[in-house]
C-alpha cells in the first residue's frame, strides 16, 4: 500500500496512509502516515466505535492539510483494551515450533505438487 501511495505522490496526488504496521510503512517511506497502535485489522478505528473512527479520519484529514514535509507520522491517542496481542501475533516458541515446521513443509510440498501438475 505504501508503494501505491508513493506512486500517487510522485504524480502530484497528495496521500495519507492509515495503518497499524508502523515499521513496514516507515521503512518504505511515505509522505504522510496516521499510525494507530492496534492489532492489525482496524487501521481506521475499533469496530463499532463510530466516534473513534470519525476522530481518526479527522486526524488523517488534518495531516493532509498540515504536513509540510514527507515521512510525517502522527500516532493517534488510542489504546487497545489489552496488550496480549503484541505477544501472541505470529508467536514462535517451544509450544508451536514443531507444528510451524510441519505447516511450512506441508505448504511447500503442496506448492511443488501444483507446479508439477
Amino acid at each position, binding site marked *: *500500500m505504501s508503494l*501505491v501511495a508513493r506512486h500517487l*505522490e*510522485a504524480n502530484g496526488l497528495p496521500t495519507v*496512509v492509515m495503518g497499524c504496521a508502523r515499521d513496514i510503512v516507515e521503512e518504505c517511506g511515505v509522505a504522510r502516515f496516521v499510525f494507530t497502535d492496534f*492489532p492489525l*485489522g482496524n487501521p*481506521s478505528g475499533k469496530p463499532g466505535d*463510530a466516534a473513534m473512527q470519525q476522530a481518526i479520519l479527522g486526524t488523517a484529514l488534518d495531516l493532509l492539510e498540515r504536513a509540510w514535509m514527507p515521512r510525517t507520522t502522527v500516532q493517534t491517542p488510542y489504546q487497545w483494551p489489552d496488550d496480549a496481542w503484541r505477544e501472541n501475533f505470529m508467536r*514462535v516458541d517451544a509450544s508451536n515450533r514443531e507444528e510451524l515446521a510441519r505447516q511450512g513443509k506441508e505448504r511447500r510440498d503442496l506448492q511443488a505438487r501444483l507446479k508439477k501438475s
Partner: protein
Amino acid sequence: MDQLRPYRSFVSYIDCSRTYYAAQGYDKPYAWPHYDEVPFAPPAKPLSQCRVGLVTTAGLPKPADPMAAMLYRREMYAQPAWPPPASLYTDDLFWDKKATHTRDVDSFLPLTRLARAAAAGRIGSASPRFYGVPTDYSQGRTIERYSPQILKWCREDGVDAVILLAL
C-alpha cells in the same frame, strides 16, 4: 510517565514475520521495500474543496455459490462508495484474526466517516468510487500494474487527495 518499559512498545512486523516464516522453514526472508527519497505533493487547494478517495487492501465479497467462490481470485477493482458495502473479503489478508475482526467495514475502510466529513464541509466531496488493490508478494506488480491503475481511476473520478488503508 505511566510506565518504564525495557522494550519497544509497537510490534515490529518485519521482525516477527521473519522469525515466524523462518520457523516454517523459509530460509530466505522477505525483503521489504526501503527508500531514502520520499515523494511529497502538497494539496493544490483547500481541503474543503478537495474530493477525497479511499483505497483498501480488502477484496470484494466472495460469491455465495461454492463453485464461483472456488474460482474467486483477488483483483483490482473500483466500486461505488455509496451505499457502503455491508462487508468486504479480508480472510486472505495478514491481520490479527485472534485479537479483532473486520465485520465493521468502517474499522478498515471509513466510507461512512468520509461521507460524514463531506456532509460537514470538512472536505469538498467523497469520491463516488472506492478502490481495491490486492496485497501482492510481488513489489513489481504493485509498482508497475496496480499503482498506475489506481492513479488512473482517481483521475477519472476527479480525486484531489487519497487515503490508503492497509489492513
